[in-house]
């Protein structure tokens, strides 16, 4: 099936049908102040010169670093089958074709994606995908608001900062309330504070908690869910999909909705994406799920057929009253996740998760010996925060020594005295003993240097 932009003739024909001279009147609803009004772009360049310029820019990327940065995006071994499959011409578009049912193959891959994620999350229904983990989390909160007809959501502060910021962006113009719950010394969400918040103020639509949370710590999800449900609120689990190979699935501990970032499933870390929003829910919430769902049925001749289903709340039908107007389907990324999961299988995925956990233990010990102990006492899987004096400076110095020392937590929690000198570090199955040794050695030198400078200043 060919994909091409509208031609000048196509546009002229459409304008004629609409009785318009230009397309400008179609944008009348968009205030002039927010229109682009032309882009400030440099002029055209010859292809060879442009390619050379882009190569120079790309060469500035540091691909030589020993990488301990996770914070929502995780490096994993990518089976070559993933790239091989998603590069096929039949699949190589991000979009579901219109009329979608013509493309049975595309619909089947989406159906397989939904089925695999339903198995991983232990929930009944999975959407065809969303932009990313942040968008999926915000949509999960909005689903709960629609389902409960309540307008207040409680979210652990130990959920990915970008997810909470995105949710706030969705919430504030609509007058919806997002409150953050504090965490305890051990890095887990404060259940007493949750109980208090549920007990006062307007009724709560949903409680959101991460598993593992933004500090890498495992939350008491069953208990959080019980407290939420006792107050008539829904429980949203913000998950990392690889971890579900070894942790309890959200459906098992009572989550009504699971949202998360699908990047760890076969998608290489890329600055800015494209990534893959996962959104799963119980059957009771099926009509609140925004975006697309693919179902399986039989056609008139009794053959298996895949179809778009429950489409009546999408924006081409319901316009501004659709379940969501910030919706897409990341079909190509969902295909990558599908091929990744199918290639690894349940045992392979368990090996990935367990391998990362084992490397993370090695990393913890190496860093503790180098003078950077863990901050939180709670159990973790493959990511944790360590205390490093003068963390931002040390982080920058370590890049010069060939180590990307995770995320300085001061960037997410600038007002938290304990986290200000924290680095959030992670290991996965691709982290090597050599990289861990490089990190520990470089850290030893840098932390030592800090002490010497402090002495010198004194």
């Amino acid at each position, binding site marked *: 099936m060919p994909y091409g932009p509208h031609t000048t003739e196509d546009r002229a024909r459409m304008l004629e049908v609409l009785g318009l001279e230009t397309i400008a009147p179609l944008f009348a609803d968009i205030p002039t102040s927010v229109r682009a009004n032309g882009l400030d772009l440099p002029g055209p360049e010859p292809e060879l010169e442009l390619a050379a310029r882009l190569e120079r820019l790309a060469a500035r990327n540091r691909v030589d670093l020993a990488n301990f940065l996770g914070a929502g995006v995780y490096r994993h071994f990518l089976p070559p089958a993933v790239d091989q499959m998603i590069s096929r011409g039949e699949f190589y578009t991000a979009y579901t074709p219109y009329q979608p049912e013509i493309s049975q193959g595309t619909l089947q891959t989406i159906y397989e994606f939904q089925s695999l994620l339903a198995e991983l999350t232990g929930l009944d229904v999975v959407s065809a995908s969303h932009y990313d983990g942040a968008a999926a989390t915000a949509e999960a909160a909005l689903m709960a608001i629609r389902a409960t007809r309540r307008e207040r959501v409680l979210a652990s502060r130990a959920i990915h900062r970008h997810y909470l910021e995105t949710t706030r962006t969705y919430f504030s113009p609509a007058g919806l309330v997002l409150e953050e719950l504090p965490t305890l010394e051990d890095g887990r969400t404060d259940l007493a504070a949750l109980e208090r918040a549920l007990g006062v103020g307007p009724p709560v639509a949903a409680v959101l908690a991460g598993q593992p949370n933004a500090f890498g710590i495992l939350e008491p999800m069953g208990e959080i869910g019980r407290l939420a449900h006792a107050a008539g609120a829904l429980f949203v689990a913000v998950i990392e999909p690889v971890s579900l190979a070894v942790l309890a699935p959200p459906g098992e501990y009572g989550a009504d909705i699971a949202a998360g970032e699908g990047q760890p499933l076969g998608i290489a870390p890329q600055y800015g994406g494209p990534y893959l929003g996962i959104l799963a829910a119980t059957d009771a919430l099926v*009509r609140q799920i925004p975006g697309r769902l693919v179902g399986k049925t039989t056609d008139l001749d009794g053959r298996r057929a895949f179809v778009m289903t429950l489409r*009546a709340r999408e924006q081409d039908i*319901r316009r501004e009253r659709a379940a969501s107007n910030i919706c897409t389907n990341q079909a190509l990324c969902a295909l990558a996740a599908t091929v990744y999961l199918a290639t690894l299988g349940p045992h392979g995925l368990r090996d990935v998760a367990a391998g990362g956990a084992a490397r993370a233990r090695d990393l913890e010990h190496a860093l503790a010996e180098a003078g950077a102990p863990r901050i939180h006492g709670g159990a973790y899987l493959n990511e944790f925060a360590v205390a490093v004096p003068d963390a931002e400076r040390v982080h920058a110095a370590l890049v010069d020594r060939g180590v990307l020392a995770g995320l300085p937590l001061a960037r997410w929690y600038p007002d938290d005295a304990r986290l200000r000198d924290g680095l959030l570090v992670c290991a996965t199955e691709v982290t090597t003993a050599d990289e861990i040794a490089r990190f520990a050695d470089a850290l030893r030198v840098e932390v030592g240097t800090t002490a010497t400078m402090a002495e010198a200043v004194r």
Partner: protein
Amino acid sequence: MEVRDDLRYSDDHEWLRLEDDVGVVGVTAYAADQLGDIVFIELPGVGSPLAAGQAFGVVESVKAVSDLLAPVAGEVIEVNGALVERPELVNADPYGQGWMVKLRLQGGESGEVLMDAEAYRQLTRAG
């Protein structure tokens, strides 16, 4: 399509039957026919106050989802729970078993602003 003489009608195709100060509300046979097979209905909670014209629920057919608008102001005192399991009752019996909510009407409200059967027949014939 059947239009009953003893009911009043909104231009959004809801009907209203007055029983003292209680108004029973549903959608007309014409609306049910136009929507096609109804597969899901979302109704409000008992006790919800509704203004005239306010959306009180959603009706979903195989081809569209539409808001249900209150034909008059009132407080919801009962909803037709049978529709949760059997939304097809709206297609089968729109003026009977397919009723949706009962409203306690505010003082003096009589649905006078709504169309009578004859006016509604005109509307649907024109539409």
